[in-house]
């Protein structure tokens, strides 16, 4: 929550409560909170005050997934408790290796890399192949039909890594148990950032129904409503989005869990961002290992996950939002995995959650802050961890 919003609410409370003594207490509490650094908002907070778990389908080297991880790790305002990895853009095993290597390159091997789900709960590559014969081809299927710089391969194969293989090892714990442990250790303090399919989150929620309610908030890159573009990948099936589609059952489970807050970066707004050659050149001018890594492997394209990450760090990047109730279709028809949304008057009342949809952004501000994060020195490991 942005700091000005806290103060805005406090002012309303002050007006409601005329007692000077109550005002004094309220202000004292507020000042105390600010000093503790528990109030988010990048510019005005103590270093490392923002506890976050990065749940990511971490295809690499470079690209949207790694750049999103970097956006959060490079911010001095965050304390990254761990990076939990899930199959999505690539398979889990290779994603873990790419993530470990990135942490080595930027000197943050203190951040645990925690392996999560290798496969969606119900959906599978083989099932989708049959589904396609009935309902049409799906252009992008992540690890199932695409691999960075090489042929599509099986889940356990790790092709040679152009950035070099890591020597560090992943955590022994699995993603779901790690996340559960963290939200119990820091109740209502941990932001869950989700940049990939929701399998790990659904598993955590299934194991511990308290999981979502103990987290502070859920930040999601996923879903698609009505993207305005000429790209047929999005116009022909405007409600299909890869992250939510790859594991529809997990998405539905997570979107029916009692989060205190859910913020969603959709395809609609993501495609208003572009990783241009100019941006890559600006990052290439940075001398830090993070900047050099990013620039070396960057490709022109949309800044899907980076926008979700950056808008969490600085909500003022987002200039327009609206709220809807959201779910994902789990029926096995032509709409399997598609985004469902309702307003209050039309929703079915089956536990679906209200989410904040980002509609528009200040592009220049986003690009500036993203480049700044990529080229700044990587913050040292969080003290007292």
């Amino acid at each position, binding site marked *: 929550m942005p700091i000005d919003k806290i103060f805005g609410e406090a002012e309303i409370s002050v007006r409601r409560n005329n007692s000077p003594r109550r005002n004094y207490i309220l202000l004292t509490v507020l000042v105390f909170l600010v000093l503790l650094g528990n109030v988010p908002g990048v510019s005005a907070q103590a270093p490392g005050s923002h506890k976050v778990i990065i749940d990511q389908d971490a295809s690499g080297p470079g690209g949207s997934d790694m750049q999103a991880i970097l956006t959060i790790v490079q911010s001095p305002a965050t304390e990254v408790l761990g990076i939990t990895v899930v199959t999505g853009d690539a398979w889990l095993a290779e994603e873990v290796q790419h993530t470990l290597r990135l942490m080595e390159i930027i000197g943050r091997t203190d951040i645990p890399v925690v392996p999560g789900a290798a496969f969606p709960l119900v959906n599978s590559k083989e099932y989708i192949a049959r589904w396609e014969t009935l309902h049409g081809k*799906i252009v992008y299927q992540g690890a199932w039909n695409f691999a960075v710089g090489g042929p599509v391969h099986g889940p356990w194969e790790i092709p040679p890594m152009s950035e070099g293989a890591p020597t560090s090892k992943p955590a022994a714990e699995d993603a779901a148990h790690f996340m559960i442990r963290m939200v119990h250790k820091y109740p209502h303090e941990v932001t869950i950032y989700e940049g990939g399919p929701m399998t790990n989150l659904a598993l955590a929620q299934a194991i511990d129904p308290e999981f979502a309610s103990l987290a502070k908030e859920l930040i999601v890159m996923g879903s698609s409503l009505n993207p305005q573009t000429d790209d*047929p990948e999005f116009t022909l099936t405007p409600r299909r989005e890869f992250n939510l589609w790859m594991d529809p059952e997990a998405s539905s489970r997570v979107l029916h869990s009692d989060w205190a807050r859910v913020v969603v970066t959709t395809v609609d707004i993501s495609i208003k961002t572009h990783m241009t050659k100019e941006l890559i050149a600006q990052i290439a001018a940075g001398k830090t290992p993070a900047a050099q890594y990013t620039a070396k492997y960057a490709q022109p394209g949309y800044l899907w996950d980076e926008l979700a990450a950056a808008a969490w760090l600085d909500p003022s990047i987002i200039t327009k939002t609206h709220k809807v109730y959201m779910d994902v279709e789990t*029926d096995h028809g032509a709409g399997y995995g598609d985004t469902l949304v309702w307003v209050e008057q039309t929703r079915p009342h089956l536990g679906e959650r209200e989410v904040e949809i980002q509609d528009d952004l200040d592009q220049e501000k986003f690009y500036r802050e993203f480049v700044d994060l990529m080229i700044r020195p990587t913050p040292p490991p969080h003290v007292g961890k």
Partner: protein
Amino acid sequence: MCRRGLFLTRLSRGTISTFGMPAPALHQPASTSSTSSIKVFSAASLASSSKVFAVLLTLLLFASAASPQGRRKVIIDQDARGPATTDQQAILMFLQSPQVETLGITIVSGDMWRDEEVAHTLRMLELTGHPEIPVVPGAIYPLINRMEVIDRWEALYGKVHYEGAWNNHKPGANSASSLRGKYHPPAEVPDLIEGNPTIKPAAEDAAHFIIRMVHQYPHQVTIYAGGPLTNLAQALSIDPEVADLAQELVVMGGALAAIYPNGPPTELRREFNFWWDPESVHMTLTAPWHKITVTTVDISIKTRMTKAMLTEIAKIQTPAAQYVAKYGDKEYMEYMWDELAVAGWIDPSIITKQSQLFMDIDISHTANYGNVLLWDNTDRPGLDEQLVNLPEELDSAKFYKLFVDLLAQPSAAPVAAH
């Protein structure tokens, strides 16, 4: 999420412009299994016969101006809410055009129940001077879909905003405001505010009428459908030759990615006509028509009735104009859903941009039931889905002018009975 540049290199969906001429018929095989039943014109044969074609076209144009027999034949299949509204106004555009010969109006439940629609249509024909046009009752119910099933569906998947004749379906309850009435069962026809008709509907049913007409005038009849497609599905089921024997199919239905003035819709791909009877839409859109044009919500909401237009129409002294002026919607200023589909057929130059994509509807009993499915040539499943013309942009001034001009036409001379 991450998508690589690889996928951005795909071609944007093709657009074609219509320069005052009907777009060419689509002789595209829908799949290997149905190729044999569809004529495929090669580019070479088209080029060599282009001179002959031009001469024929000139002759045709002369013929159409010269005699009633040269008029473009149409069957109007409509969910004919009344009085006026988009349904009756769309019908009137055909009836008022001197270039059009209306073989009959086949009625289907949709915006209202069939029998009430039949009464409104008969009365409209009396009031506007077209009493000779056959009104042929069609389907009362969709093939599979039922309002009781939709109740259960809504409990799972959320409330459907507009349900036509099913709206608020408790006897006596107020229907949606634009229905202007209370819910009643299908066989009940309340007294009409415009007066009850004295003329009678045809004894034949809609499906058999459609079949008989396309056999009587092979490759000459346009089938226009402004409502649910139940009648067409019945006709195709009884006689699969209907699609091939018709000249073309013109439909108002479906929604793709419409941009509404009041913000993003929650239901992007749901549109009433298609949603009411999804199975019929699937049967119709997978039949081998020579040409299909679908006017979707996306372009329909770029039109609107205005008070200024109604004022202008009120000054015209023809019965058709007076009917619209008296009963036309003055409160909601509705989108001109069906009128636009008609106008694009009467004068294709009104459509300034259109695309071609493969279209079907989801008939799985899921959250997506009744929603439009769309593909291009690279991702379609090849299960008889057809390439359809999708008007995207219009010349609004030309459209509104055509609508008003048609209402100002004297009622067209009757043609011999069929």
